[in-house]
């Protein structure tokens, strides 16, 4: 397959991945255009872009967390949480803008809890976020009592139909978030420090980086973005469902890893992750247009995940820097 890492420069390695992904995406689009007449239509592409908005947001969140050397599997649950909080508060009569604010805060709160457990109690991020995922998911079920909530203000739901420069609003929000986060990561001091922490936490610490504080920030930010994703999701399907984001961890993590972000931290890009998500959604779209069983997606994702990481893993094992305590 391709080499993920180029020894001469991290940039060229990253760039290679991005180009490859771009190529893959174009290839898929070409194939689908050939196979299906409805693919390359404004309506279809719009739908794809809108649909990938929330998973794209989750991917952004996970990318930042992974680059910082952490891990977050609770992203899907937080996405469901914000929707559930929003819907529930609305039903009991809380003013809508306030409800939105609280929903977003709920995401931050979960991020905060994750941070406390990982930073202060020094527990492994995987198990911690696995546990919080379970906790949050059950809170979601409890709030919604297992039902689907459809009672939401029209003005809110109609945001789905808003277009900005011919693009769906939801997609634009995704792009905006992506741009902000990408700029943050690549151009700001904070971003540098995040990469540093992921690259080698001890070195970052000794070099004066406030690792603990930044970790808090990263997890809370992730929570916020996931919550935002939940709002986008609610608008898109015009309902609040308790099962939102159940499959998210696999899809998002696979896309993010394919996009060049590593599990170990210190490397990655928002663009890569989004291209990965885009590729996934193109595939999904293709499946439905061609009438294929959508469950093939999960299979393919699983295989891709193992191969991509497997390849990276072989490169890594030469460097013998595997730390099993990490995850």
């Amino acid at each position, binding site marked *: 397959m391709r080499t993920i890492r180029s020894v001469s420069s991290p940039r060229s390695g990253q760039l290679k991945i991005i180009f490859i992904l771009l190529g893959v995406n174009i290839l898929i689009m070409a194939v689908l255009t050939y196979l299906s007449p409805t693919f390359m239509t404004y309506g279809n592409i719009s739908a794809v872009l809108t649909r990938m908005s929330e998973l794209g947001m989750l991917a952004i969140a996970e990318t930042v967390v992974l680059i910082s050397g952490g891990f977050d599997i609770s992203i899907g649950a937080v996405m469901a949480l914000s929707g559930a909080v929003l819907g529930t508060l609305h039903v009991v009569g809380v003013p809508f803008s306030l409800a939105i604010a609280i929903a977003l805060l709920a995401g931050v709160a979960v991020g905060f809890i994750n941070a406390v457990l990982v930073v202060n109690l020094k527990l492994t991020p995987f198990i*911690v976020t696995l*546990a919080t995922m379970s906790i949050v998911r059950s809170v979601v079920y409890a709030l919604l009592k297992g039902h689907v909530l459809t009672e939401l203000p029209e003005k809110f739901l109609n945001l789905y139909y808003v277009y900005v420069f011919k693009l769906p609003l939801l997609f634009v929000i995704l792009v905006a978030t992506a741009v902000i986060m990408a700029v943050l990561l690549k151009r700001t001091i904070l971003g540098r420090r995040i990469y540093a922490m992921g690259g080698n936490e001890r070195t970052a610490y000794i070099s004066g980086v406030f690792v603990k504080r930044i970790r808090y920030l990263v997890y809370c930010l992730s929570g916020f973005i996931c919550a935002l994703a939940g709002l986008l999701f609610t608008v898109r399907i015009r309902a609040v469902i308790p099962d939102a984001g159940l499959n998210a961890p*696999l899809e998002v993590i696979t896309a993010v890893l394919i996009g060049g972000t590593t599990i170990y931290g210190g490397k990655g890009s928002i663009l890569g992750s989004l291209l990965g998500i885009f590729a996934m959604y193109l595939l999904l779209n293709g499946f439905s247009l061609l009438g294929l069983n959508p469950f*093939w997606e999960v*299979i393919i994702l699983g295989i891709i995940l193992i191969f991509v990481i497997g390849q990276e893993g072989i490169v890594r*094992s030469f460097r013998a820097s595997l730390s099993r305590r990490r995850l």
Partner: protein
Amino acid sequence: MNGETSRLGPLSSLRRLFQVREAPILIYIIIMIAVFSVTINGFFSMKNFEIISRQITTIGIVSIGMTLVILTSGFDLSVGAILSFAINIGGQGIVLGWPIWIVYPFMLILGVILGWINGFLITRLAVPALIITLGTMNIYRGITMVITKGVYITPIPSVYQVIGNGYIPFVFFAAVLGFFIYVTLTTRFGRNIFAIGGAEQSALYSGVPVRRYKMIVYIISGFLSALSGLILVGKSGFVQPQAGLGYELNAIAAVVIGGTSIFGGSGSVLGTFLGSVMLGIILAGLTMLAVNPYWQGLITGILIVLAITLDSIRYLRR
């Protein structure tokens, strides 16, 4: 110096039963039973315990496999998926009218094969077991869904329900439990598992066949997942493609609560058993207290956090 634990020989295994680590959980369990019995009418009854024991069984058996895996400092997120695959794909045999003495082994073999695949990938690719089993979990589930097209297998011949009746599930659980307690306490394989998780490099240098043993552990996990599936089918009376969802979480919870360290190298099958019992009792009690069943995830999650915090403290103290 001449202090604590005796761990040699079958008799001292008994003494090991009351080793420091497991004793507290036993006490918690007793306390919980007492508290619930007092506050809930009908908790302390044979019927109730029978129900609880059946509920514990399916997760419990899977947890035992998970214990071995975690002891070698690995992970198996695919247990639920293997369970589902085994009973659904194996269940096609039921649809085709095969006799039960072919279907059961078929299901179990599927579990073994999937476990083998896990083990193979984990030992050959220098990739965390976490990621690999995340991938295989979804592959197995995906394949299951594709083949079954989401269709339940029902009705099934009543002979398949024998295994799920009354106390029989618990008997299976007890048998599996007993077997693996024996294995982890008295066989070379079992003891070496601890070595692999505790200090893999050392174990390797000492001549322990690390790679082979890791493979075996994942195969066992796959097998036990399939076995658990058989019982699940017996209890519920049908085969559904979504079977086993969330099992990995509960299994990890039982293992961790039972005192096994997620870092590997330390813990016990008995502890996992107690952990799953405790989990089962808490959940059953809360259900009877008319606490919203949706809070289950919350409780499980909190228990996991508490357990690994304790584990972390114990680990760091070393």
